[in-house]
């Protein structure tokens, strides 16, 4: 019989290029920060305070995106801030993904009492306002990189657990799972070799989304002065300072904000793009 579907090859989306490009740029900046940052990000100099960006009158060469009220170079701080942001994104994102996915798969595929326990914890977690929970955890754990990562994992594992549980339940009802049972495959084997590959696109999309969220959570914690110690530059800390002096020196807020905006957007678009790419089934 004739089939009108034909072989459809989808082009690599523009958004995959754009988001991937921005993130690669960011990784490079983070790796090479000490060599490419024009100034020392911590150097305070009251003579160079609140310099405007390069195209405005009164700009100083070497301070391309201006300086803050303590005379620190905005561009250098953004570049150094990328290090922390990316570490948080990668470590917290991956840990959250692994823990949440494992719990979601077990709950959704095994059902029964493991599901009841995990779902109950998800319910309880969903009743906490996440930002407040994070702030509270940092207050308890103390500020610092490890605390931030732990806080993100603790508040956000439910995002994976909920979605993956639902997906695993859908996949578990498919006959290819029954077929694996007929073949004599063990439940754990079926979960890892049959269900997991089908859930993978969703996991990838959620993972990159989570990386973006991790960056935001770090920024929010910096914003309420609960992130890393005040002397290492963070985007959230810069935004917090910029927010207070926005009427005097808008650039202190605008440039870190644009960076954060693009980064979060890129992470989520990368995930969506990859999800489409990795799906062989065009239904």
């Amino acid at each position, binding site marked *: 019989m004739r089939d009108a579907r034909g072989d459809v090859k989808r082009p690599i989306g523009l958004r995959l290029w754009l988001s991937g490009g921005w993130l690669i740029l960011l990784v490079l900046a983070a790796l090479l920060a000490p060599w490419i940052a024009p100034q020392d990000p911590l150097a305070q100099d009251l003579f160079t305070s609140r310099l405007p960006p390069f195209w405005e009158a009164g700009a100083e060469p070497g301070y391309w995106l201006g300086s803050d009220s303590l005379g620190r170079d905005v561009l250098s701080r953004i570049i150094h801030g990328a290090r922390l942001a990316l570490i948080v994104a990668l470590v917290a994102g991956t840990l959250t993904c692994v823990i949440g996915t494992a719990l979601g798969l077990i709950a959704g595929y095994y059902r029964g009492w493991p599901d009841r326990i995990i779902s109950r914890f998800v319910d309880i977690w969903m009743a906490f306002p996440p930002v407040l929970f994070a702030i509270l955890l940092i207050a308890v754990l103390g500020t610092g990189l490890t605390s931030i990562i732990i806080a993100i994992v603790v508040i956000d594992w439910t995002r994976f657990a909920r979605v993956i549980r639902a997906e695993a339940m859908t996949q578990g009802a498919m*006959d290819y799972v*029954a077929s694996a049972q007929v*073949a*004599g495959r063990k439940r754990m084997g079926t979960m890892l070799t049959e269900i997991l590959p089908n859930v993978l696109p969703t996991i990838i999309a959620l993972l990159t989304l989570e990386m973006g969220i991790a960056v935001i959570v770090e920024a929010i914690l910096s914003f309420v002065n609960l992130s890393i110690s005040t002397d290492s530059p963070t985007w959230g800390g810069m935004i917090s300072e910029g927010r207070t002096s926005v009427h005097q020196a808008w650039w202190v807020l605008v440039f870190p904000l644009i960076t954060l905006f693009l980064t979060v957007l890129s992470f989520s678009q990368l995930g969506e793009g990859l999800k489409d790419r990795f799906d062989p089934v065009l*239904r």
Partner: protein
Amino acid sequence: MYQVRDLRLSFPDMTRKPLFGAAPRIEILRGLSFDVSKGAVLGIVGGSGSGKSTLGRTMLRLLEPTGGSITFNGRDITHLEEDALRPMRAQMQMIFQDPMSSLNPRRQVGGIIAGPLRVQGHDGIPAKVTEALDMVGLPRSFANRYPHELSGGQRQRVGIARAIALRPEFILADEIVSGLDVSSQAQVLNLLQELVRELGLTLAFISHDMSVIRRLCDQIIVLYQGEIVEQAQTADLFAAPQAEYTRTLLDAIPLPDPDQVWA
């Protein structure tokens, strides 16, 4: 090969569960007894809601019966644990109704057919996969295709190849042609008939279509609302249907024949 005695299966009806106490149960299978002898081709026929698919899945112990017994090759498998069933699984295989659901969309055809062989610890898997593809009449190159790249009839052949690759004694085919066009249906049925003969298979064939059953099977069980209403040799059943329901069923089938009395 199979001895089924007073087989019962019911599910609790959670939608009508009282606040305290057990939920009322919905009875799907209400005491079925029959045998499947070695080499037989048994047709299981019934309308929607007759319990025919549930019966199939219970025979393969994908579901656990709530009453009665199932004996396979002399061994009682009614309440056997999955671990104990696993080695026996190589002898009983299943072909599913909807290949879009029963073939893992992320696996290539070769991997799908190799799956059960690998689980059961066979050697020389690539050769066996090729052999299975040959037997169901699919080109060997299909091993590297994904299920969504195949037509409906081809997908169902992959399902058959997966089931026969283990060389089981018994295969259960659950409505395997109901989603196919008549031309692919005829091909798949002819293929199945050939394989039964060549491999000496015992086959249980679940279908709602009397015409298909007649073509393929030598014994028939007619199910109606979870009970066996008639159980006979194919020729006898069509020559002189005993049960009222069987007669209604036969009378209702529109044959491709303008002279059929159909009123």
